[in-house]
């Protein structure tokens, strides 16, 4: 688990009220009702602050933001990091 992934998990628990016991990398955040879709901007802001990159609005989709694993994968494409980083 890298630093971003750890920080993301911590934020989901502290900021978004996720239950740490039931939050795994594939837990569905929006489609599973864990996070209200109205709060997506807060999550995007967190990602942008952590990565120091702007998230293109067209990229804020369920495909990229519906689980820790998906957000981490998206973060890699955004930062141009290698898959094994």
């Amino acid at each position, binding site marked *: 688990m890298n630093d971003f992934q750890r920080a993301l998990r911590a934020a989901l628990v502290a900021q978004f009220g996720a239950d740490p016991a039931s939050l795994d990398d594939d837990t569905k955040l929006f489609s599973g009702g864990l996070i209200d*879709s109205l709060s997506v901007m807060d999550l995007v802001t967190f990602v942008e602050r952590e990565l120091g990159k702007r998230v293109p609005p067209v990229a804020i989709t369920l495909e990229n933001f519906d689980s820790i694993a998906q957000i981490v994968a998206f973060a890699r494409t955004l930062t141009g990091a290698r898959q094994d980083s």
Partner: protein
Amino acid sequence: MTQSVIEALRHRAERQPERTALLYGERRVSLGELLSRVETAAVHLSERGVRPGERVMLDAPSAPAFVFAYFATHLIGAIAVPVDPSSPASRREELSRRVSPALTLTADALAALEGLPAARGSFPGPKLDAVADLIFTTGTTGRPKGVPLTHRNLATAASHINAVIGTCEGDVDLIPIPLYHAFGLGSLRCFLIGGASVVLVQGFRLPGEIFAAIERHGATGLIGVPAGFAILLRFEERGLGAFADRLRYIEIGSAPMPLEQKRALMRLLPRTKLFMHYGLTEAGRSAFIEFHRDRDHLDTAGKASPGVTVEARDESGAPCPAGTPGMLWAHGAHVSPGYWDDDELTAATFVNGWMRTGDVGHVDRAGYVALHSRHDDLINVGGVKVAPDEVERVLAEHPAVSEAGCVGVPDPRGIAGQVVRAFLVAAADQAPASNAELSRWAARQLEPHKVPSQYEWVTTLPRTASGKLIRAALRAQKGVKA
């Protein structure tokens, strides 16, 4: 002469079979295919025993097959009853008991419709004063109100709305509102008979889906609720602003929009017509405002739609002088004939083609309609109405709670318009419950938007002598502004 929406659609499809009707993901449905699939579905529904006047429940999310089944229901003269497939099973069962559907079509049943071989039947088309749709909307007591709308209601409303908005051939309109919602379904009818192509999006889930769909399909029109636009607006120039030269119009509805949001949209989209409607399921889109044109009247709901009269009336039912507040009444060929299975409520609400809206406001000399407040206690969370009674019943069942009173308060995030704030009286001799525990309790029995986001413990709740909760007094005591 007025013709039903399905007849208008049939004529358009016969004239322009190649024109794109629906866009859904990778799929494109032409008007010719739409008509063929509607007829095939109508034959199927008839073979399943659905007769004119009988109800067909559409218990499924937005998809092309929903559209086929919806218009097929109209074609055979039956009544479409759209319901939210994500609502609790108990609610859908209750609606089913009340409407006794001849057939209920779930997402699976609709998918099966897609596989049927093309079939043609002889359908004369519905009678204009027959009921076309039965839409359930939240009532103040939590019991949903069934609102029948006739083919005449739908057809006149659609032609008036298209006259206001200017929908025309070549437009590409994005509908991110579910089709089981009156706003989404109404827009579908308007856009299709206006000759536009409709992009169906699975709800307003995450904003990237909207931006991507606008870009991909070259959308010229977009509808949405204020809560959705609150999210989209946060992306400013790089979000909606990027489409300033593409979006010809936007239509907003279902909840009030804060003035600052209206101004933000105007700044971001200076050349886009920004329409917002005021209406109820019983009298949809009774008034329209266009923000740029009516920039000096942004605090109003605009003027009555073509063919519609809106009046403020006093308690005796007499019209108020211009500018004087009263109960708003609406009249026109779009007004529902009266509620399903509720004669008492019908008699209290509908009088000689007029609907008593339950909203308080005034109409000024120039005809601008200003809304002051909802007359009832419904809470509007992101455009979805919440009956406080239902939430209170659930909270009062928690062992730590003896009484509950819920009101709408402004969403501190400035997104959903209102959120639910619960005032609770503790049960004697019980361990206290945390807010998180109360929210988990509520979420087990209620849809997410009904779960309170704020809680406050009080010693008593204001009640009438007969024990009825007085929410206006509760709001006043707590300094709550809706």
